[in-house]
């Protein structure tokens, strides 16, 4: 690896985002190149600062007491026992496995749909849009599907990610054309016998748009797994059925 190639990768390395092979190649170069090593120090400094962008949350007195007590006795205080899975949770896990690669607003969620709507409202109220999306993406059970441009937006691209555990999903779209006045993009979750709206969104000047998708009565009540996802152009506010051209779609599952 030469300096030019190394400098392409240094920032990603500082973020821990290089794959193992590229990281090894960069490390070999850094051992021999002081200039690039100095650039890495600056990149690590920048990456380290990103931690400070996390919303500040108080750990609380109980955590403080636990940490100080564990240091005082020289041993870690016992970590909390993991809760035993309930029968419905185990069933839900089975559903998640069966429908891997597809949105799993499974039947067990129906009983909790009211809680779910309240929870999603709180999530949306508590963080900016980008924070919501990252929160979904970093969930341990996050699932993802890529979407490709279609029709008048052949160069568009995007992805849909969702957390069955959190019961919320998010769409990210890029390269979508600007909308005429009175129009919006509408996302659809397509089942065997019907299309369920995931909500509407617009895009910025660069064609970038995002949508946080809440599980609603319609999708939660459908025990079957969706077949695919897409985005169409619709009147502002969206509609109950799709009428406009499709601009983004996932493969059929």
């Amino acid at each position, binding site marked *: 690896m030469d300096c030019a190639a190394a400098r*392409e990768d240094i920032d990603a390395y500082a973020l821990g985002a290089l794959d193992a092979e590229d990281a090894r190649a960069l490390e070999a170069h850094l051992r021999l190149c002081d200039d690039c090593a100095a650039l890495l120090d600056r990149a690590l400094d920048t990456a380290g600062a990103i931690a400070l962008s996390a919303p500040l949350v108080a750990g609380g007195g109980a955590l403080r007491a636990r*940490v100080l007590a564990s240091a005082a006795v020289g041993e870690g205080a016992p*970590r909390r026992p993991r809760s035993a899975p309930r029968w419905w949770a185990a069933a839900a896990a089975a559903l998640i496995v069966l429908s891997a690669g597809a949105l799993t607003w499974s039947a067990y969620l129906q009983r909790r749909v009211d809680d779910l709507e309240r929870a999603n409202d709180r999530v949306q109220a508590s963080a900016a849009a980008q924070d919501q999306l990252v929160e979904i993406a*970093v969930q341990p059970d996050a699932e993802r599907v890529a979407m490709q441009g279609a029709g008048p937006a052949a160069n568009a691209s995007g992805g849909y990610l969702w957390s069955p555990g959190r019961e919320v999903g998010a769409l990210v779209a890029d390269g979508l054309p600007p909308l005429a006045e009175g129009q919006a993009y509408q996302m659809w979750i397509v089942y065997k016998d019907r299309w369920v709206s995931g909500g509407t969104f617009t895009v910025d000047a660069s064609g970038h748009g995002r949508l946080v998708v809440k599980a609603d009565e319609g999708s939660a009540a459908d025990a079957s797994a969706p077949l695919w996802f897409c985005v169409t152009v619709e009147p502002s506010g969206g509609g109950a059925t799709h009428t406009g051209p499709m601009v983004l779609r996932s493969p059929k599952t």
Partner: protein
Amino acid sequence: MDYEGLRDDELMERLSGRDLDAFRALYDRYGDLVYSVSLRVVGDTHVAQDVTQDVFLRVWRRPELFDVARGKFVTWLLSVARNRSIDERRSQGRRLRHEAPPSTEEEEDTLASRDERDDPAVATVLADERRAVRRAMDVLPPEQRLAIQLAYFGGLTQQEIANTLGQPLGTVKTRIRLGMQKMRVALEERRAGESGD
């Protein structure tokens, strides 16, 4: 002894002598920050508490792991917290896929914790630095900010980010590189301004 008046490296020196008061001062200074970073990564209050405990116990048991010549203590500490959190999240992910999604109680607890964000009682910790970093991130184009956040807080590789966003790998690499360059310029200009005051 006025521990609150001691610098971080001075407190760390005292940890080598098993000074519990110095440890308490460090926790009071950075405990909420470590917890916040962990919570941002793992998204679960109980797991974040476990990680916070592990991180500070590591500092208590192995203070020599911090090398003052390599930079600021808080940068090192939060890096340890972030890496430990990502390890725990990956471990949690494996358990979730083999066992079950989180219980209702755990979800409600986690969601409730989000209402505590920017708690006034803890908002003064490194307030200027935190504000500067958030400002530097806020001015990034959203696609660059998202790629950086997915890498740092999500622990995703560039290829995983590309898969997540449905974007070519080269596009994600460019977004990360440009976003980091802009952040670096903004943060270094701020520091230069401070040193010139």
